[in-house]
């Protein structure tokens, strides 16, 4: 197998506590292109990995504001400008009667922003992932915990990184390749 085809090195752990200890050492070793895979979000892992906050909340706020503006403009333009008609002497555009739909569309657009923003930032949907060529890795969504250091990390040196991973106390280190072997 040629080196250029290498995606990264994978190591497996049995429990969240072993994973947490190992993640801190990978973080401190200065790797950048690496990740932790677990069947559920491990509490405190953001700090163990050194992940900074996400900009997702601002995207959602933007979505909400667009929804609010859309609802306000839509109701005003449709009922007060384009097709004005008086019902029970109510004003054509008065806030109290228009607030429910302003609220609903704010929530709706925020939810869309949260949903599509989150999957978008995560780079999903992603139909192919070299990690899934590993049989062992399938337990990452079930009951095992993994650390992957990618080959494109500037600090990645096949032998040295393999030795480093092996010293973390997990199972044996596995090479992951970009394409399946068969």
């Amino acid at each position, binding site marked *: 197998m040629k080196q250029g085809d290498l995606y990264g090195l994978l190591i497996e752990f049995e429990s969240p506590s072993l994973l947490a200890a190992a993640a801190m050492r990978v973080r401190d070793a200065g790797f950048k292109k690496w990740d932790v895979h677990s*069947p*559920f979000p*491990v509490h405190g892992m953001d700090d163990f990995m050194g992940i900074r906050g996400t900009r997702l909340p601002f995207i959602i706020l933007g979505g909400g504001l667009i929804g609010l503006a859309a609802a306000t403009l839509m109701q005003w333009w449709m*009922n007060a400008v384009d097709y004005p008609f008086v019902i029970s002497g109510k004003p054509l555009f008065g806030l109290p009667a228009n607030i429910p739909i302003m609220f*609903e569309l704010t929530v709706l657009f925020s939810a869309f922003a949260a949903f599509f923003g989150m999957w978008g930032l995560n780079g*999903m*949907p992603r139909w192919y992932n070299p990690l899934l060529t590993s049989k062992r890795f399938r337990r990452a969504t079930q009951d095992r915990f993994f650390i992957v250091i990618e080959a494109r990390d500037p600090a990645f040196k096949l032998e040295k990184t393999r030795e480093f991973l092996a010293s973390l106390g997990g199972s044996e280190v596995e090479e992951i390749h970009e394409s399946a072997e068969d």
Partner: protein
Amino acid sequence: MKSSATDYLNNTSDDPRYTQELILGGNDFTSITETVSDIVLERKTPLAWYVMFTITAGLTGILFLMIGYLFLTGVGVWGLNNPVGWGWAIVNFVFWVGIGHAGTLISAILFLLRQKWRTSINRFAEAMTIFAVICAGIFPGIHVGRVWVVWWLFPIPNFQNMWPNFRSPLLWDVFAVGTYATVSLLFWYTGMVPDLATLRDRAKGRLQQIIYGVLSLGWVGSHRHWHRYEKAYLILAGLATPLVLSVHSVVSFDFATAQLPGWHTTIFPPYFVAGAVFSGFAMVGTILIPARQFFGLKEIISLHHLENMNKIILATGSMVGFAYATEFFIAWYGGNPTEGFAFVNRAFGPYAWAYWIMVTCNVVTPQLFWFKKLRTSIPVMWVLYIFVNIGMWFERFVITVSSLSRDFLPSSWAYYRPTIVDILTFLGSWGLFFTLVLLFIRFLPMVAMAEVKTVMPIADPHSGERHIVGDYHGDIPEHVRRKGHK
């Protein structure tokens, strides 16, 4: 306590010396994964499933036949008459929308309140929300009379260059229920993606791998993904919380903004929301109890979960009872003779039978949940859930029909009776609801595996290897736990 030492499935002890575990039987990540995903992937579909599916699919067929008949003939096939222009269609709509509220309450509000017990039941309750909203959405769509212009409900440009009236609560309803259905669906699906990935990774058949593979969007449990995922989930919960309170408030505006005695009251929004949560929890329980029994989920959906639900039913049922009393008080205290008559008429008029069914099922029988023995007894709670389902349907019936049938002018009073088409349409909506529930149970993970794993003590990265089950002193003693080991 003695009971918890003899029966490991009973974790309802209030004894503060023991921390009650949520997940029983010494389950670990592997066994949770197997228990839940094997229902979908490995187990042979039970014969009972086919039998039930045949019945519910038949009822769904009847629903669509009735709708077809309605479309071809007109709303005259229903029992509507001159004062009673809103009959079972509206009653059923409000009933089904209300059912949905428990799902959002469990998934969003209990999430924000950090109620760990929600994780075992939230997937099921959210699924039920979506199916109930689907059933609800049918009724306003078909009751408009001229169904070919039903799209006038939406602000779509049309040849008459006219727009809907945004100052009408009926239009708020379109947006409220539409938003509610959409956000519930996004929330449900987002929560399910990690579990769909679990199914993908465990599936043996090619077709299953492809379908669950596509649905799981390529999820690999990356923590960089979990990080944004948890943020999105938290914010979606934060958005769904005011939303769920708003939906039934807006539904209640349909009534409260009308100037009809018995409807025109400010208590409606909170009263409707409490009733919705009440009926929703009862419906979750109605389905959850047989499901956990048949599929061996008693260790994951434990008695403690059911007891908590019963406490919520007791609380919301009492709120509903309090609202009934307040309505009567205000009708008397307000001194408006028409309003006063509307309420006396409800309790003692031609619909008194419906009123007293409602009071019995919603206010009286749920009070039995004050007794611990009764609220931890499976047969008792199931019967009470059925009562609540009946009572809450009658509540909407009483509100809608009793006020309309006797309004201001005695010469126009009339008694409303449903026709066979009304009855079959409503039965058909139950068929649709249970058809969707059965499909869900068969093809999707009915317990949120990833979320259940997070609330297990072994999920804590600070738990030492030696304390595999619990890490706090005062946990269930070793000999009690052992009983549950497989």
